[in-house]
């Protein structure tokens, strides 16, 4: 049981860390070791997934890459730790990783009692259900008596229980330790329904042998704001991760992309853009970063729209619409405070 050994070790690590100076200055630690240790999933296409060469890509991966670009000016200075849902918080608490970017839902309990801080939301999601098309189910309300497969240790488990209880429907829960095994239990016919966040459903569906034989039901049964998480108490580090995301959203709003950022930096007369790209003043100093931090994020990783299109957009197998994740100016709720 690798995961449990890992957990025990992490627990032992909490126990053994000498208390002085453990909580503060993640930035100094990261600068000293020369890379960011980033906790990601064990494979959710579009969010964090390794290809056959071991190259990681996805929205969550890009959150870590953006932070690395801001600090080092190099988006490749990240090492990834694949974590199961139940290992992830312990790994962050114990200092094994610096950022947890593992499609993790921001909830009250997690934010307040785990010694962790959620930085910002990089994907607005909601839980849904996937069923086989030939069952002829049109609504989640028709699922009375169904067998439901899901991954263990997620908000999904609780939302599912709440949904069926609220609608007075009976169901049989099959809770599997890893997402991949939950999916194979679903595809082998052990379950009628597979449930997780809708983005996850789309991603998992793309892994099935015949994706078109499965439908995602229209109901969204929960709010799932997903975002990177850091340890509680290190405000500087939290600010860096938060603003790495805000910069990407602002860049999309201002029309700055990885392609034109060089040109805009030299040609623009807009003071706001000049401030953002470090052509004027030194916005990086307050964060302990170089003046070019925002420029590096955009040049190396791209703005939020580019990240979205590249990883989960219509041209990818995951094929998700922008929906809630469109900019606030375009009907979505992606909104970032101004850089000033």
């Amino acid at each position, binding site marked *: *049981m690798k995961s*449990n050994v890992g*957990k*025990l070790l*992490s*627990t032992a690590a*909490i*126990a*053994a*860390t*000498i*208390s002085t100076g*453990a*909580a503060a200055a993640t930035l100094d630690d990261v600068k000293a070791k020369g890379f960011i240790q980033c906790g990601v999933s064990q494979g959710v296409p579009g969010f964090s997934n390794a290809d056959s060469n071991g190259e990681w890509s996805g929205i969550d991966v890009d959150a870590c890459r953006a932070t690395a670009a801001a600090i080092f000016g190099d988006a490749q200075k990240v090492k990834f730790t694949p974590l199961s*849902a*139940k290992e992830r*918080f*312990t790994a962050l*608490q114990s200092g094994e990783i610096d950022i947890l970017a593992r499609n993790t839902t921001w909830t009250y*309990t*997690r934010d307040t*009692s*785990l*010694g962790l801080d959620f930085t910002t939301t990089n994907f607005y999601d909601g839980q849904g259900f996937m069923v086989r098309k030939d*069952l002829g189910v049109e609504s989640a309300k028709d*699922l*009375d*008596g*169904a*067998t439901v497969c899901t991954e*263990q*240790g*997620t908000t999904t*488990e*609780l939302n*599912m*229980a*709440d949904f*069926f*209880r609220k609608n007075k429907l009976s*169901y*049989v*829960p*099959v*809770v*599997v*330790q*890893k997402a991949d*095994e939950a999916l*194979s*239990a679903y595809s*082998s*016919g*052990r379950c*009628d329904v597979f449930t997780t966040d809708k983005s996850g459903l789309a991603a998992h569906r793309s892994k099935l042998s015949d994706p078109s034989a499965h439908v995602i039901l229209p109901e969204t049964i929960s709010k799932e704001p997903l975002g990177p998480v850091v*340890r*509680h*108490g290190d405000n500087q580090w939290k600010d860096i991760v938060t603003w790495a995301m805000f910069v990407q959203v602002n860049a999309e709003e201002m029309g700055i992309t990885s392609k034109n950022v060089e040109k805009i930096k030299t040609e623009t007369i807009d003071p706001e853009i000049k401030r953002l790209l470090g052509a004027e003043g030194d916005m990086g100093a307050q964060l302990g970063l170089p003046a070019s931090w925002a420029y590096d994020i955009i040049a190396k990783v791209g703005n939020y729209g580019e990240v979205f299109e590249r990883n989960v957009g219509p041209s990818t197998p995951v094929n998700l619409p922008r929906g809630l994740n469109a900019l606030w100016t375009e009907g979505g709720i992606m909104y970032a405070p101004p850089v000033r």
Partner: protein
Amino acid sequence: MSNKTKPNNSLLNDAGTRALIFQLLLLSVVVFVGYFLFTNLQNNLDNRGISTGFAFFNEPAGFPILIHLIEYTDSGTYGRAFAVALINTFVISLLGIALATVIGVVIGLARLSNNWLVARLATVYVETLRNLPLLLQMFFWYFAVLAALPAPANSYEFADFLLNKRGIYSPNPIFQDGFGVVVVGFILSIVAAVALIVWAKKRQTKTGLWFPAYWSSLGLIVAITFLALVISGFPIEFDLPEKSRFNISGGMVLPPEFVAVLIALSTYTGAFIAEIVRAGILSVNWGQTEAARSLGLRDSLTQRLIVLPQALRVIIPPLTSQYLNLAKNSSLGAAIAYPELVSVVMGTTLNQTGQAIETIGLCMLVYGSLSLTISMFMNWYNKKMSLIER
């Protein structure tokens, strides 16, 4: 040495005192290290704002559990979920131990069989099962064997039993008024059976006359219980499993998660037990068998009365380790959705509450006590079976 005039009688030279001093030193080191680790843990938890304690036990858990032998709903508490998981772990361990023992004895005897084919088949079984990782075997049973069964709509049907990839469905007995008569009849029949066995044994010691006590007591139990059923007019109704839109509704179900874990645990451990049984039997001197035969005992009696009791002395200690292994290996069930302790407490509970140290500590405590209980029982049994010298 010899011409030392004044022996040094100081306390420091006293062997007992010295030993005591060293013991105290060691103890203080242990206490200090323990204290350091504990306070350091406390500090770190405080620094990181991680809340501690077992208060979450009374909070509603809000997550479902597939298999629960006691009442459990989604609104049950974490404490209740813990109890459910604990029972699931006990049930799978005890059933696994019972089944593994039966398999082990049968295969062990088969390996010693004079029948060439039986002996070879048993060898193949042992060598295959004990050389493959247990987790792999669980995945095999769950994903390859049980998942290959038909969908609920095309279930295999035998009488009122259904078999499909969602499990084994059987009629669920619902006891009506008057079932108490049957229960009383059953208890009475057991009392009668025990009395019969005791009487037969006494008579045999006294007169040497043999009476088929086991078979006749079995007959007694069946007959009396059946009589009680007839008298009370069969006060049982059955809730039959029926096909519904998605699943089978009604009846009782053995989910594939449970079946896969039980098969994997018992066949795997059974292979090890088979070797232990074989070793135990081979360790009994052939002279014992020859002596029994020359006294005129039948082969079956020779085995039961002469060989096995002596073999047990060799078998029990390693058998205990296998039982302990099985109980601990039951935690692998978490990988295929069997809701035992590791899955429910170290999986879901840990993740929802974030109480890593409490939940992991609790699991260690439970497995520790389970193993110690099995150990204590087996040690008692071992003592009972050991050679009593006269």
